[in-house]
């Protein structure tokens, strides 16, 4: 496990592992995830469905079902939040660490006015009286850029558009002035123009309040523009972590590399042939002791099938978990060997048609 030491560390996650027992076997949802987040920084966690990004976030927020088996440490401002005493717990989540979810309609109470819902947070955690809590709610709505906040406090969620609803959810998350905001696919359910407004808003709020943010998304483009650092997850593991420019310009993990190549880009002419990633994401029940990406990887060599590569590299700069990283000599050798044999160690046919180098 790579040890990273960042000055001003706010959140430190060590070897986080989450298992869900099911009738079909144990789902290994998150495997040894380790990262640090500096105060005021923003970390993007990207991955596909089932990669473990949302489970990671829910673990941080203590939102997992009781059946989940969790191990590892989550140190927030020097305190292990998994060991918080009953009293400390009550006003920790929702106060210091808050979360915004994907679908604003289901995260709001449909039979309560927007203002009341925000005020409820203030009254419960900060013991405000009803009147001042409502006034503060109106203030918050204004801060998140909702026009006519005085009118909106008395409206129900269904009277608002999707973009406005998500702003209400953000206002609620900000009510107690958190030092860390976790946003789980906050803009997936909205249109692109609304997405831009919401992401701009989160950026501004983060800067103005010196708040840290974890942005969880499946959209690499969103993470690129909004985060200081991006962590890529695959099959429950962190496979690569770097600053956006490094990740996009000089990726190491073959999965990141292939993902970037498979996405259609707006500056390519139409009908540009895409380079898809073969196969599909693996099952997380009883996975074999090998690199989870090996069956889909053009670089896979016999050693990839013998053990799981651990994430390593320059702490806080560029880390990746791969034996034959893309854009390196080792990677090029592995690919050349596979091309010569026509197939990878995992049995995937490879040709040199537009493959990564």
């Amino acid at each position: 496990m790579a040890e990273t030491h960042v000055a001003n560390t706010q959140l430190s996650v060590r070897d986080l592992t989450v298992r869900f027992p099911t009738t079909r076997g144990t789902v290994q949802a998150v495997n040894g995830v380790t990262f640090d987040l500096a105060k005021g920084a923003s970390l993007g966690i990207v991955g596909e469905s089932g990669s473990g990004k949302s489970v990671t976030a829910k673990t941080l927020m203590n939102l997992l079902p009781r059946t989940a088996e969790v191990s590892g440490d989550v140190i927030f401002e020097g305190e292990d939040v998994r060991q918080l005493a009953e009293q400390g717990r009550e006003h920790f989540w929702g106060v210091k660490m808050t979360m915004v979810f994907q679908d604003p309609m289901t995260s709001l109470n449909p039979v309560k006015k927007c203002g009341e819902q925000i005020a409820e947070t203030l009254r419960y955690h900060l013991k405000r009286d009803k009147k001042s809590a409502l006034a503060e709610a109106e203030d918050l709505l204004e801060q998140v850029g909702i026009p006519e906040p005085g009118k909106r406090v008395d409206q129900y969620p269904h009277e608002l558009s999707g973009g406005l609803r998500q702003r209400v959810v953000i206002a609620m998350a900000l009510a107690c002035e958190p030092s860390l905001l976790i946003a789980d696919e906050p803009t997936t359910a909205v249109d692109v123009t609304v997405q831009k407004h919401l992401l701009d808003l989160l950026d501004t709020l983060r800067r103005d309040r010196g708040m840290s943010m974890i942005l969880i998304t499946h959209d690499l483009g969103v993470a690129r523009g909004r985060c200081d650092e991006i962590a890529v997850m695959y099959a429950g593991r962190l496979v690569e972590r770097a600053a956006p420019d490094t990740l996009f310009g000089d990726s190491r993990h073959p999965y990141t590399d292939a993902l970037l190549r498979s996405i259609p880009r707006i500056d390519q002419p139409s009908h540009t042939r895409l380079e898809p990633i073969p196969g599909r994401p693996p099952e997380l029940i009883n996975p074999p002791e090998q690199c989870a990406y090996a069956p889909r990887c053009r670089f896979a060599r016999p050693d990839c099938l013998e053990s799981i590569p651990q994430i390593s590299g320059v702490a806080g700069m560029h880390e990746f978990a791969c034996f034959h990283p893309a854009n390196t000599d080792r990677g090029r050798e592995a690919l050349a060997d596979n091309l010569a044999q026509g197939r990878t160690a995992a049995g995937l046919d490879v040709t040199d048609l537009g493959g990564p180098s």
Partner: protein
Amino acid sequence: MAGSGHAPLREDVDVLLTVRDLEVEFPIGKGAVVHAVSAISFDVAEGETLGIVGESGCGKSTVAKSIIRLNDIKGGTVDYQGHDLATLEGEELRRLRPDLQMIFQDPISSLNPRRKIRQVISEGLAVWGDERGSWSQSRIEELMLSVGIDPKFGDRRAHQFSGGQCQRIGIARALALDPKVLICDEPVSALDVSVQAQVLNLLEDMKKRYGLTLLFISHDLSVVKNVSDRIIVMYLGKACEIGNANELYENPRHPYTRALLAAIPEPASTVDVSEGDISGELPSPINPPVGCRFNTRCSHATEVCFTDEPVMQRVGESDHYFACHHPVAVSINA
């Protein structure tokens, strides 16, 4: 945002499908109606892919569904090989339906969960008998193979496949009757990014192999550009810009097209990022704005935009049309 006018209808190409002044309204009680699609005109050439792009509520899916008559059409014509699909009824309509097939956004829920996928794929052939290609085991297997599903899984049901595989099965079902037109309504939106490219490539391959004409609907501007020959940008039931895919993205004239291209996470280089900051909310399609429908949110809007609806006009001699009183000037490198 107008889109009225027939300027984008072409005469110099082999047109397969011509939509003229299409109007679709949905009554919602008390005499109110949702103006879902208003006076849209466009055509699709044989073998072409037409992309339809726009935000939710712009009417892009309604246009597609109208063409195959999944909803009622209030006005306008849909000309397909000399037949008006907008008014055709009964047996005549039924005879044409196999020609126009559709694949949907949610691949799993669009397959009958109780049926084996072999039955799902072969149902159309069973109905049409020998008229549209014979119903045989080998034909079904060929279809499955062509979309990359191993025929030995023919006895499985939809829930035993991943999303990407279900979308392949949906494509096989659509192709079974040898259609001319394939309508794809957000076919990759529900798929993981690593699987999207597989399905997009498959659609391109199938298009070549079976000589298909595609209508491709998506909110994702990069995906639409990748698959389309021509693109139509819609806003609140109207078309605002139509043109050759590369030309449209290189030289967007309509402020709304530019806003879309600027708002995406990695904006197009042909627009300024600040153009993506369009203010306000999408107006109600029950009482759409008079004049240009984009006038409530457009930074270029002047008086004329609130009184006169702009008409589609051509950019020089190119395959590029827009409907705007104040189009953004051509960029220098154009």
